[in-house]
């Protein structure tokens, strides 16, 4: 049995909400800022001098629960230097159809090279488009820095793990 007044109460709730501030926005004209710890599409970071932070260690791929990352490493030379140390990622691919944005790759990275960014606007018209390559993931070079590969003086960047701030 419908209790008297119940219908009216429901109608009142509907009526009242017509005057509330809407929670939705007119996407894509309007975009909400994402939270500081948002996990969007990955980026491969660079050092200030333009060298890539990624050393091709594939620990991200090992940590990935969805097997979305594929890394192949090659050897740096001082003539053609991509990253500090001996090793760099000559192939770095993330399949975003597999990625579950858990951020384990970010946790595993010893050089803070792979970082989940703000971009969540990912769409593809076919499956192979969902595979982002190294070139697509690398952040652009800062205007004051040089692109990779760089020619550097011998012995300048012979350690792969840079001095990092103490996490404490």
């Amino acid at each position, binding site marked *: 049995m419908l209790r008297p007044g119940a219908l009216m109460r429901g109608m009142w709730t509907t009526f009242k909400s017509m005057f509330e501030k809407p929670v939705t926005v007119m996407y894509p004209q309007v975009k909400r800022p994402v939270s500081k710890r948002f996990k969007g599409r990955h980026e491969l970071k660079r050092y200030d001098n333009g060298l890539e932070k990624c050393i091709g*260690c*594939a620990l991200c*791929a090992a940590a990935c629960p969805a097997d979305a990352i594929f890394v*192949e*490493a090659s050897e740096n030379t001082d003539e053609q230097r991509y990253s500090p*140390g001996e090793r760099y990622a000559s192939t770095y691919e993330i399949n975003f159809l597999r990625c579950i944005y858990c951020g384990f790759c970010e946790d595993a990275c010893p050089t803070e090279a792979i970082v989940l960014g703000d971009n969540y606007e990912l769409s593809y018209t076919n499956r192979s488009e969902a595979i982002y390559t190294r070139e697509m993931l690398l952040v652009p070079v800062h205007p004051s820095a040089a692109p990779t590969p760089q020619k550097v003086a011998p012995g300048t960047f012979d350690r*792969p793990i840079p001095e990092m701030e103490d996490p404490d």
Partner: protein
Amino acid sequence: MSELVKNEAAQNMVTLTIDDHTMSVPEGTLVVDAARSIGLDIPVFCYHPKMEPVGMCRMCLVEIGTPMRDRTTSEPILEDDGSPKIQFFPNLMTGCTFRASEGMVVRGYTEKVTAARKEVLEFLLTSHPLDCPTCDKGGECPLQNLTMQFGDGESRFIYDEKMHSAKHVALGDLIFLDRERCIQCARCTRFQDEIVDDQVIGFSNRGRALEIVTFSDPGFDSYWSGNTTDICPVGALTTADFRFGARPWEMNASASICNHCAVGCNLTFNTRREVKSGGEKIIKRVMPRQNEAVNEIWICDKGRFAYHFTASDQRLNQPLIRKDGKLVPSSWELALDLVTSRFKNAGENLVTLAGGRLSNEDLFNLAELSAHLGGDALLYSDMAGGDLVSRLGVGEGTNFSDMGPETAILVVACNLEEEAPLWWLRIKQAAERGAKVIVANPRKTKLDRSAIHNLRYEYGQEAGLVTALLSAISPKQPKSPAFVNKLAKDKEVKAAAKALSEAENTVILFGSEGTSYAASAALAQACANLLIASGHIGRPNNGLIGVWDKGNAQGAWDMGLRPSEDLDAALKTSQAVYISAADPAGDSKQYASALKKADFVVVQELYMTATAELADVVLPAQAFTEREGTYTSGERRVQRFYPAVPSLPDLLPDFGITAEIAGRLGLELEKTAPASVMLQIAEVVPDYAELTYQKLAKVEKQFPLIGREDVYYGGTSYQNSQGLGVQLKPAAQNGDSPVLVITELPEVKLSGEELLAVPVTRLLDLGNTVTPSEVLVTRLAKPHVALHPQDAEKLGVEWGSKVKLILNGSTQTVLVEFDNSMPHGVVLVPRSLGIPIISPTPATIKVL
């Protein structure tokens, strides 16, 4: 267990307790080995079960106690509860140098021990760079694993005070050294000194400045260098081939067998998809797989690095048919129909020529097809005696590791380290255990160092020398040439003959140093005679071993293929030639012109070889890495290999192609399943009866326990879980009683000013399966000949200079090397370097 343990295996067993596990081991077993044999961990870095202990790293510190005895009565002192009273040493002891004794108690997890381990690791890490993310060893690194297991998370040392040294030192062309990572365990230097006797690397300086250096030119000049990367407990030594190739956990492992020589080393192919290869799965590296009866845990550098041929972009990928003088692509149907019709016409004039790198299944089908048409099935080889090996070969249960003072080993006409490196290693180790090694060779070889008798003879007299050995031990002898009688009177020969006949066990290995087919046949027969006369047949660790030039030559003999005494004539007179996995035209111009005369040539190959260029039809085959099969080693051990990578599209295995042709000729052969071919082989070939793929895949527990989770103990060699193979019984072991066959010894002819050019074997030659490995290029032999320095002086030739070599009517420019142990009047010509040499031939050298 380690060599040490094995020697004393006959001795008393003692009972000891390690961490509450009580076990019985032979007296003298090291505590570490005893623990490991039942799967307990006493962590080590410098100790290796295949080497003598040194106790350098202190990682194996444990508490050790022995039962107390009364000093006056030497009766055990008992606790109140009746158990023996144990007195522990006041200090921690190194488990790797301490031998087990009766009643010993070992404690590996007390507070004292764990604290010691923590401290040892802390010290080892004071200078270790901790660049595990970029280190090739990361993931299979003993230091990494043991630090995680036993280490402390914190270090009291200051990070900035780490010792920094060179990170990229090329020790040789194949091995890179990272000096920072080295923990100075000396496993690599001890391996080179103790195990393979190539003292080319060593320690320099002291203390913190201690570093590994190489003092050979070229650097790290050894055929065994790759093994040091397996046993290095850190990432200090890495191979140039695999450098940053993949992380260890990313790769799959496939069991395989090396087919470069007759030893049949067990391998593991590590595979992974690669972008460069279009996302295809490719072989990333080759690792040894434990088989204590074949290669233990070692492989030579040829086996480790010369694998790239299977992934070469030069591989044939579709059938070719000759049209208007040119080879053009065709469909399989068309090519096979053409081949079939021509084979049908040829009938018994079909000559089948197969190389010794084919599997038993391939060879069986080829032999069956050939027999169906009534043609000749030939093995492409300059060595004879495979039939003798199948009758008088080593008995089932033969293992070089079991050979000691009761065994004599004769190695004749063979530069063993070049022809079959692992056998050299195992015979060297047998000699160290007391086996009497006798080397008969015209010049010095590395095995001479292990020999008690070094017998020298002139090139061409190898069969004569063995006959002389026989003469020296047997009272009545048929008439022999004068040089044999002279050799038989030689003191050294007499002593060697005595050692051979008096030994309980005798093994004879014959190689191909300076032999032609005819000389090889005489040599094999002479060796067989010697074994029969001295009664060393039909038992384990007794018999004849052929040091074949190809991995499965023995299998080819067993499948009924035979080398031709006159291949040239056989090719010329044939109506159709079916060549598989052999390149006669590339080896000799004579064969090339003979093939040009043949009516119809079919070549089944991996690449466009010189022979394939001459073919009327070229059929591409799968590489052995893409399929299953079996090989038979020189010790007649049948072993299985498994597919490692997917086949190129539309290719068939060799036995499949043969079966397709046979099917069209009305002969039903197995096309797809090699296991079924093996069942047929078992029916037809008596020695292979009852052999199945299942039996070949059987494994037993092997000591030391290698691989598994604990790479710290034996290195990164793989555990064998896919089959140890089956050693066949020779006919002599099945009750066959052979009789001596006296053959006429081939004579040596030399005339005038000419030198005698003799073929010899180099390990790293320019063979079709070696050259595609770029990493080896600088290590491969260049086309060269070797002369005695005095002969060279007479000719006015300098070391390393170029000369003109006139041989068999063809002229070639080659480099000259000297060898002062070789006889005068001879020029050594290595095989497979592009210099056509099949048998000893007169040659002329002209200075350029």
